[in-house]
């Protein structure tokens, strides 16, 4: 097919949108909802990933001493910790220093002390691993040592976060697949109506020897255009509401990191628009295969 022939093809999708306006609107809305959820889901996963990565990169293990640990216990524990593989440094943190850190992070010394009564923190060691992967191993070894009350490290949170992420991912993918299928079906129903409305024209085109692609392109374009419009609507909603949502989250869940929109705007737009166009094209291939056989 000649590229210049697109001048004959381009007006057709618009004619069809006018002709099947209600059907087209339904298809566009379904597409918009599908892609909106895809977009929200995509941003959610990116944010969780960012948090997970941040925590995962932490290489600290806190080893808390038992309350009855003596000076000698403390020193032998330090030696034992230093002898573990993958340990970069071991630093003593007294219970007073520990409280200071806590206050520095959450503010308001009086409130914390009032809540806690007296300083409940034990003395501790902060063990730094050379590699994030060594953290779990170090923590497990430390737990078995004498006079150790508790061991804390970021990994536990990371594991929970990854579990949540997987869970969200599974449900999200499931919902997206279902929605995508319905969007594709709705588009294919719309295109089918166009095929039926243009049955006569298709027959004439075949009789006079139009090439297959000349016959197919209008339907393909119509599907892609519906997908594109749906994606535009979804994208507009995402772009408009993301910052507001993040503002709200930042005020309420301060200790998490958030991705700012301007860092992901290009990716998100590309993914959604491309997704819309691809789903639209898929939706038009189905009726074409069935009705436009050679």
């Amino acid at each position, binding site marked *: *097919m*000649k590229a*210049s*022939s697109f*001048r*004959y093809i381009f007006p057709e999708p618009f004619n069809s949108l006018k002709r099947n306006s209600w059907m087209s609107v339904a298809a566009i809305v379904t597409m918009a909802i599908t892609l909106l959820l895809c977009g929200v889901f995509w941003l959610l996963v990116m944010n969780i990933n960012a948090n997970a990565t941040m925590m995962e990169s932490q290489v600290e293990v806190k080893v808390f001493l038992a309350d009855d640990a003596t000076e000698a216990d403390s020193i032998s524990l330090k030696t034992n910790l230093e002898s573990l593989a993958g340990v970069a440094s071991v630093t003593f943190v007294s219970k007073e220093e520990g409280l200071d850190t806590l206050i520095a992070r959450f503010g308001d010394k009086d409130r914390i002390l009032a809540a806690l009564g007296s300083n409940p923190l034990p003395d501790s060691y902060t063990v730094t691993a050379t590699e994030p992967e060594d953290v779990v191993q170090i923590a497990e070894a430390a737990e078995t040592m004498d006079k150790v009350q508790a061991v804390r490290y970021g990994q536990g949170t990371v594991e929970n976060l990854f579990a949540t992420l997987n869970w969200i991912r599974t449900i999200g993918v499931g919902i997206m697949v279902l929605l995508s299928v319905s969007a594709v079906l709705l588009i294919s129903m719309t295109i089918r109506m166009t095929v039926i409305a243009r049955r*006569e*024209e298709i*027959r*004439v*085109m*075949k*009789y*006079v*020897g*139009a*090439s*297959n692609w*000349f016959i197919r392109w209008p339907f393909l374009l119509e599907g892609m255009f519906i997908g594109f419009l749906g994606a535009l609507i979804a994208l507009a909603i995402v772009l408009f509401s993301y910052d507001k949502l993040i503002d709200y989250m930042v005020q309420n869940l301060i200790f998490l990191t958030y991705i700012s929109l301007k860092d992901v705007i290009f990716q998100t737009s590309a993914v959604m628009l491309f997704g819309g166009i691809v789903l639209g094209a898929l939706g038009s291939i189905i009726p074409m295969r069935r009705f436009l056989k*050679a």
Partner: protein
Amino acid sequence: MIIQMTNVCKKYEKGKAALNDINIEIQKGEFIFLTGQSGAGKSTMIKLLFREILPDEGQIFVANRSINRLNNVEVVRLRRNTGVVFQDFRLMETKTVFENVAFAMKAIEEPWFLIKRRVPEVLEKMGIGDKADSFPRQLSGGEQQRVALARAVINRPMIILADEPTGNLDPDTSDDLMNIFSQINAEGTTIIMATHDKRIVNEKRKRVLALKGGELVGDAVGGWLL
């Protein structure tokens, strides 16, 4: 030789053959009448020639090439070399006369300047130059068939296949249309016309292929053979 059929058989589903062992040769520029009673196999023959259907047995050659096995591009080429006209016109009701005819040129991707020039010329030649902006429902049967014929010839095919083009027309209108067919034929286009209009066949005195129950029972120049 522009068309040749050798031992062509065609059977629809089960039942007896719609065409049985047909052997014919048609030269370039001939005017052929396909005659026979209803159900004799005329339409089947026309459909085989523009490859709407395929034969069960035998070979069909158009311009010395077998059309039994063609890829998409070759089917497109065959269709561009063959114009078709039907008893029921098959015009697009929502398009004007001009648009109906222009549609056939757009479909084979001719440039717009050529379409603008050639469509009015051909409409003029068909005697409906003043109807360009009318819709099919605003035209008489004879005028509609002229639009259909204009659409069939606009891309200058070598062959015109017409399946009872005068079937819905009164005698005078039929004669006018037949004169246009004769004119197209005189310009070198091969015409194959299925008809059961005895009067026309007897008047025109062209080669007649007579079918009966799917068999070729006559092939001679002259009048109605059955």
